[in-house]
């Protein structure tokens, strides 16, 4: 038989490890008790986890006494006071919690049959025993005793306590401390205790304290009484809290008037003589209104923020009212808990909806079963901070939001901000509190009462059941935001696949490429706020919003030069752009698990970008964002530029893009640089003591003006031009001594300007991003100012390493700016990524100087697509080509800049020209692809080819982007065709992006062979007119078009009572590409060929004024009558023909013209001998001209022999003979071309023949 071991508590405390034990490993056996020693392995083996319960392999039994903690107990905490009983044996005392609690256990020795032990604080000898199964050690006597609580030691004292109570326990408050003043003696002190609300019966027997035990139905528990259990009875709270819903007797109470503030309450107060006993014979349910406060039982699935937020069943969020209630030692993930009397809120936040359950002073909270996996015991360690007080002053939903925000802030800024900066301290508010108090609407704050007041006035509690908190947005961790965006992208792909948009591919050179998709999503659709530092990525050079969780590419059109990279920005108003090619394959492989759910935020789930084909970036304006406090530990900004040397005014002429050499491994980026080219103006500025900028130096060259319209001709030499300049550091004014070197076209000669290369190390990539080609900047030269010495920057080919604040953007206003688009972005379909330079250049008037500066560069520096095509056409091709350079050939040509809209782009690996170019220009091609970009404006399109890695695409590059390509190579290919090529120095600037539209014709279908073969019927092969002379008389099909008319005979007739027309004969000249042929037909077929049944609205609704009047004039002349029967018919050409024939009876039209291009020689004969009006002639001309411009059709006809054609000789004029139409056919059938069927037919024909 197995030996049952006995553990002492000191053994357990020594373990300092979560263990679980049971008295019987075999339920049927009952082994003898024997004290055992702890296994040394269990004590010393470090491999045993402290994070899970270690089962003791032997059956063990704990024997001890359950009681209240004495006041002198050393480890009495708030939690223990509220929930815990003590379990002690001869060796030690620890906290205990019993699942199947029986109040009679108090003061009794029990055998614990199944238990968990958890150390609370390692090394401090504290722990909690979770008693799962127990029994009285003397089973014969214990159950016979009734439950009763009293302070036996004080029963004989002389305290008068005559009041009593009998009733149903409705609720029990937490233990709290209240400063009190004795009304009689005036003594001050602290009162520790808890309140219990009893519903008492008002019957006579109860009033006399002789309640009837026999029939519980006689009692009606309706009258509420509050009993205040003060010291020393306050330690009964763990037991009284378990008696909610049970009927009990209370003796030895005193009736007291308690005054709190202005309110006074009559209540029963406990004394040392107070005795509590349970009345098991009277059973009553709690009244129904009580149940309105709700009861919920669930499994704990998450505990966050030191137990302030508890997730139940992964759907309900339990907010603990006061941290005094927790930490409950047994509140761990996996435990089953019951909550009664709580507040319940459906909160609609901007990004999600949640169910919040909030506890209050009356809430009863108990553990129904213990967690078996989680061993983390919550310990209350922190003092109540200013943030804690602030949180408690909010309503439930706002409280939940701020707790979530605390989690987000800590998660996002743990690397740059300390806990004190984020959360504040006891007296000072941290970033979270200042931010929240600013963001929250005033109606979420509620008055904060003491626990006593809150309990007594609980019925006036103002919690409402639903909260619309759409103003509360999630301060989203960026990694979760990226996850959400990718989740959206996958759902967009799925939607598009379902709506068949996936087939909308683009073609280039006959090859189909997958469709490009872009979605622009406004911030309101996310319900999130972005927050982070703005930095330039050291590996990609791109601007990013960064927090500790991740980063996201950003585009800021109003990027200033004095942006601090340490500052945290709050961005509420933004737009997210998702773009890329369609993902092929199964989308279900991507599982995201709701990145924006509260669970993911609290749990700090991390996401990383997984979909490689997706370009994801955020656009926002800095003016719409809020600058939050800079972290104190961040280094301060670099010393102000005033300490630096002279300021140069420069214009950026080019920015060199990242190249394929650029390391994508961030670890290597330190040695990399980015470059820009600038022209320095021949003048020097210096900041004066009061911050003004003064121009000091003269221009280098004294040159003549060719134009001096604004100056008197007699004046010569340098002239003084007042100007004012403005930098973002404030307006500055200066007097500038300006003299410009102008050529005959009044453009400043740029040769006289120094060209300088600006180098940006990785820590200053931000400055590179801020630069704009064509923008004006001040450069603070590091050299000290010396009026006699020429600065190094002037040296031709010099370079300058940009650091810190050496570059400041300058605002200039130019009235005659060219090539600038109107400010756009108002359209919902278009998103501005770069402001135009004219928008950046604001306020300052630089009249005299600007005349020179604006014309520094040629006006058409950036070509539109149309002008680029013109340029290509007019260039002398001989200048282009390639030059032999040793063994390799170097492409030659002009560097030009072109702007336009990217219509499409795709990989183009087979293009020989671009391959040659990349080879010639020595472009390393480790990752680069040959791509083909279709750039268009309203009318024209050019194709740009070259080598560009997808990783080097600027943000926003894609279909629908408005782009400017700087320094494209215009060269000539071997077949003397002009080509535009990307070069390693080509810089692509994206101005704006549009939503990608999916244009798809309603009737277009792609060539599908399968369906074609199915639908193929055996058609006779198509014939040719040129073969007719070889053929026998047989029916042949021809694919042809009408070239001109030989003759047309029209006659009037009557169909019923309505006038109508008939066509006895129509003769056309048909052309099938091989030869011409006379063809003859009549009536219906002729009518079809003449399109007489077609609606002629396109003709009559034209803006040609006389034709608009045509129907009216026809009406007026009696040719026309209105009839409802003809509502459709009267819009056709045939309708008007009817009325012409009514007048003329018969009309014969003959063509005497030789030319095929115009029908000017038509002769009209009237059967009635009447004269044709202008309109009538016009209509007949229109009919014939229209038929000559008709579509290709399949005519089935029979070759006519000479005798048959003789009857038509009268109609064939000499001119027709001159045209060489010798063959005649009679048309039997006319049909539209079915390109699919007929093409397949042609393939067979070509194959066979």
């Amino acid at each position, binding site marked *: 038989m197995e030996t049952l071991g006995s553990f002492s508590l000191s053994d357990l405390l020594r373990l300092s490890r979560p263990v679980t034990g049971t008295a019987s490993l075999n339920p049927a056996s009952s082994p003898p008790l024997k004290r055992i020693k702890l296994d040394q392995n269990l004590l010393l083996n470090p491999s045993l986890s402290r994070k899970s319960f270690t089962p003791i392999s032997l059956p063990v039994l704990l024997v001890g006494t359950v009681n209240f903690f004495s006041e002198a107990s050393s480890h009495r905490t708030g939690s223990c006071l509220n929930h815990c009983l003590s379990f002690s044996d001869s060796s030690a005392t620890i906290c205990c919690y019993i699942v199947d609690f029986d109040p009679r256990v108090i003061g009794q020795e029990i055998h614990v049959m199944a238990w968990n032990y958890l150390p609370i604080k390692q090394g401090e000898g504290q722990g909690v025993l979770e008693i799962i199964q127990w029994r009285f050690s003397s089973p014969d006597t214990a159950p016979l005793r009734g439950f009763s609580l009293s302070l036996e030691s004080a029963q004989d004292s002389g305290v008068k306590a005559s009041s009593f109570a009998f009733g149903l326990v409705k609720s029990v408050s937490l233990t709290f401390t209240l400063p009190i003043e004795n009304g009689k003696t005036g003594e001050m002190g602290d009162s520790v205790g808890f309140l219990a609300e009893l519903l008492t019966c008002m019957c006579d027997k109860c009033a006399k304290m002789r309640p009837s035990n026999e029939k519980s139905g006689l009692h009606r528990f309706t009258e509420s009484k509050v009993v205040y259990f003060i010291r020393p009875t306050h330690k009964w709270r763990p037991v009284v809290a378990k008696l909610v819903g049970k009927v009990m007797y209370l003796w030895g109470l005193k009736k007291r008037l308690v005054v709190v503030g202005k309110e006074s309450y009559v209540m029963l107060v406990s004394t040392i003589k107070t005795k509590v006993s349970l009345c098991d014979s009277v059973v009553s349910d709690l009244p129904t209104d009580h149940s309105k406060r709700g009861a919920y039982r669930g499994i704990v699935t998450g505990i966050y923020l030191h137990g302030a937020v508890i997730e139940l069943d992964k759907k309900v969020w339990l907010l603990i009212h006061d941290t005094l209630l927790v930490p409950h030692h047994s509140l761990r993930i996996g435990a089953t808990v019951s909550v009664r009397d709580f507040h319940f809120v459906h909160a609609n936040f901007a990004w999600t909806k949640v169910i919040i359950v909030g506890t209050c002073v009356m809430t009863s909270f108990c553990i129904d079963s213990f967690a078996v996996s989680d061993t983390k015991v919550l310990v209350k360690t922190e003092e109540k901070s200013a943030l804690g007080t602030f949180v408690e002053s909010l309503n439930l939903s706002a409280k939940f939001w701020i707790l979530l925000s605390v989690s987000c802030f800590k998660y996002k800024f743990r690397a740059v901000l300390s806990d004190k900066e984020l959360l504040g301290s006891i007296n000072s508010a941290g970033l979270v509190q200042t931010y929240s108090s600013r963001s929250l609407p005033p109606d979420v704050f509620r008055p904060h009462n003491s626990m006593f007041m809150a309990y007594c006035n609980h019925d006036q509690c103002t919690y409402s059941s639903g909260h619309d908190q759409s103003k509360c947005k999630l301060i989203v961790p960026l990694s979760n935001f990226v996850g959400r965006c990718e989740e959206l992208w996958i759902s967009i792909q799925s939607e598009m696949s379902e709506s068949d948009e996936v087939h909308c591919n683009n073609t280039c050179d006959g090859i189909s490429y997958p469709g490009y998709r872009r979605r622009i999503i406004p911030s309101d659709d996310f319900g999130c706020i972005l927050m982070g530092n703005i930095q330039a990525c050291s590996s990609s050079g791109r601007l990013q919003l960064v927090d500790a969780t991740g980063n996201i590419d950003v585009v800021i059109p109003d990027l200033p030069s004095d942006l601090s990279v340490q500052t945290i920005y709050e961005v509420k108003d933004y737009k997210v752009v998702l773009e890329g090619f369609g993902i092929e394959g199964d989308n279900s492989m991507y599982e995201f698990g709701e990145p924006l759910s509260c669970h993911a935020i609290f749990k700090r789930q991390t996401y990383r970008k997984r979909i490689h084909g997706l370009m994801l970036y955020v656009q926002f304006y800095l003016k719409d964002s809020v600058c939050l406090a800079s972290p104190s530990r961040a280094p301060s900004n670099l010393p102000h530029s005033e300490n630096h040397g002279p300021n140069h005014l420069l214009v950026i002429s080019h920015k060199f893009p990242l190249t394929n050499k650029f390391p994508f491994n961030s670890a290597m980026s330190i040695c990399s640089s980015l470059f820009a080219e600038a022209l320095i103006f021949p003048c020097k500025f210096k900041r004066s003591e009061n911050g003004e900028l003064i121009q000091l130096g003269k221009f280098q060259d004294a040159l003549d003006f060719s134009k001096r319209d604004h100056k008197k001709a007699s004046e010569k030499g340098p002239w003084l031009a007042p100007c004012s300049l403005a930098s973002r550091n404030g307006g500055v004014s200066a007097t500038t001594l300006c003299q410009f070197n102008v050529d005959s076209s009044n453009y400043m000669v740029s040769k006289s300007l120094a060209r300088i290369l600006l180098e940006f190390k990785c820590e200053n990539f931000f400055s590179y991003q801020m630069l704009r080609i064509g923008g004006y900047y001040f450069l603070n030269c590091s050299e000290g100012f010396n009026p006699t010495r020429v600065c190094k920057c002037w040296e031709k080919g010099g370079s300058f390493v940009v650091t810190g604040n050496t570059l400041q953007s300058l605002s200039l206003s130019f009235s005659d700016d060219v090539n600038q688009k109107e400010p756009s972005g108002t359209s919902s379909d278009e998103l501005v990524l770069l402001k135009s330079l004219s928008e950046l250049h604001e306020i300052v008037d630089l009249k005299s100087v600007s005349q020179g500066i604006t014309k520094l560069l040629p006006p058409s520096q950036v070509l539109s697509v149309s002008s680029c095509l013109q340029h290509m056409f007019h260039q002398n091709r001989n200048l282009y080509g390639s030059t032999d350079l040793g063994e390799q050939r170097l492409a030659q040509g002009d560097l030009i800049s072109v702007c336009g809209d990217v219509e499409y782009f795709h990989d183009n690996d087979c293009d020989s020209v671009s391959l040659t170019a990349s080879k010639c220009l020595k472009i390393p091609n480790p990752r680069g692809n040959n791509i083909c970009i279709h750039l268009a404006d309203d009318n024209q399109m050019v194709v740009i080819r070259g080598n560009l890695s997808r990783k080097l695409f600027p943000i926003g590059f894609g279909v629908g982007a408005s782009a400017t390509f700087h320094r494209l190579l215009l060269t000539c290919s071997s077949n003397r065709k002009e080509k535009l090529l990307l070069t390693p120095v080509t810089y692509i600037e994206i101005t704006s992006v549009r939503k990608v539209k999916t244009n798809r014709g309603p*009737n277009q279908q792609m060539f599908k062979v399968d369906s074609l073969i199915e639908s193929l019927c055996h058609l006779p092969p198509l014939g040719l007119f040129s073969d007719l002379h070889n053929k026998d008389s047989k029916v042949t099909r021809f694919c042809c078009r009408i070239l001109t008319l030989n003759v047309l005979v029209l006659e009037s007739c009557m169909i019923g009572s309505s006038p109508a027309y008939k066509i006895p004969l129509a003769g056309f000249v048909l052309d099938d*590409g091989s030869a*011409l042929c006379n063809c003859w037909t009549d009536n219906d077929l002729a009518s079809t060929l003449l399109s007489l049944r077609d609606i002629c609205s396109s003709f009559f609704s034209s803006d040609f004024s006389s034709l608009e009047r045509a129907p009216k004039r026809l009406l007026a002349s009696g040719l026309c009558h209105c009839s409802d029967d003809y509502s459709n018919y009267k819009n056709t050409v045939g309708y008007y023909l009817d009325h012409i024939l009514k007048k003329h009876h018969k009309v014969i039209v003959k063509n005497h013209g030789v030319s095929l291009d115009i029908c000017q020689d038509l002769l009209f004969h009237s059967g009635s001998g009447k004269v044709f009006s202008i309109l009538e002639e016009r209509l007949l001309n229109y009919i014939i001209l229209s038929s000559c411009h008709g579509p290709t059709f399949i005519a089935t006809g029979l070759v006519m022999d000479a005798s048959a054609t003789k009857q038509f000789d009268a109609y064939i004029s000499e001119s027709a003979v001159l045209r*060489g139409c010798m063959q005649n056919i009679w048309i039997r059938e006319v049909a539209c071309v079915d*390109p699919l069927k007929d093409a397949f037919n042609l393939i067979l024909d070509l194959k066979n023949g």
Partner: protein
Amino acid sequence: MTHAKLLAAELLSVIVHPTSPPSFSLPRRCPSSITRTEILGIVVSLEAKPRFLKFTWASAQACHLLDSPLLKFLLDDGTGCVPCILWLNPRLPPSDHDPTPEILRLQARRVRLGEQLRVRGRITVYRGMLQITVGDVLVEKDPNMETFHRLDCLRIAKRCYGLAKDDLG
């Protein structure tokens, strides 16, 4: 007099004879002389000279007298790009009974960037460049028409001009 159905590459490779007006012949074909052609392709470039905003009869008359309003576009059929010229003014002075200006206007409206067009016209030379002086313009909505046109060109080249299989490529 027929409109030879050609691919752009064939058309651009015709031999121009320096007669007045210049005459054209197709290499390796018999009969080789052509004056007119029909091609089918996509408009990849469009230019109006002068700017063609709203064509009214009044402006047409004015243009006829003062300027030469024309629509210049490039038709790409995958084998090459053919410059096309569509004159918007009638060749003869317009009369009241002549609807030619409206027909031209309707045709001009059909010429849009990206549109698949079937164009018939005369082959001309302008500044040494081959082009089509457009007679009529037809919009082909069905993309399969391009395949059909190519096959038709092959068929006519083979049957009518007796090209060998090798020549057809």
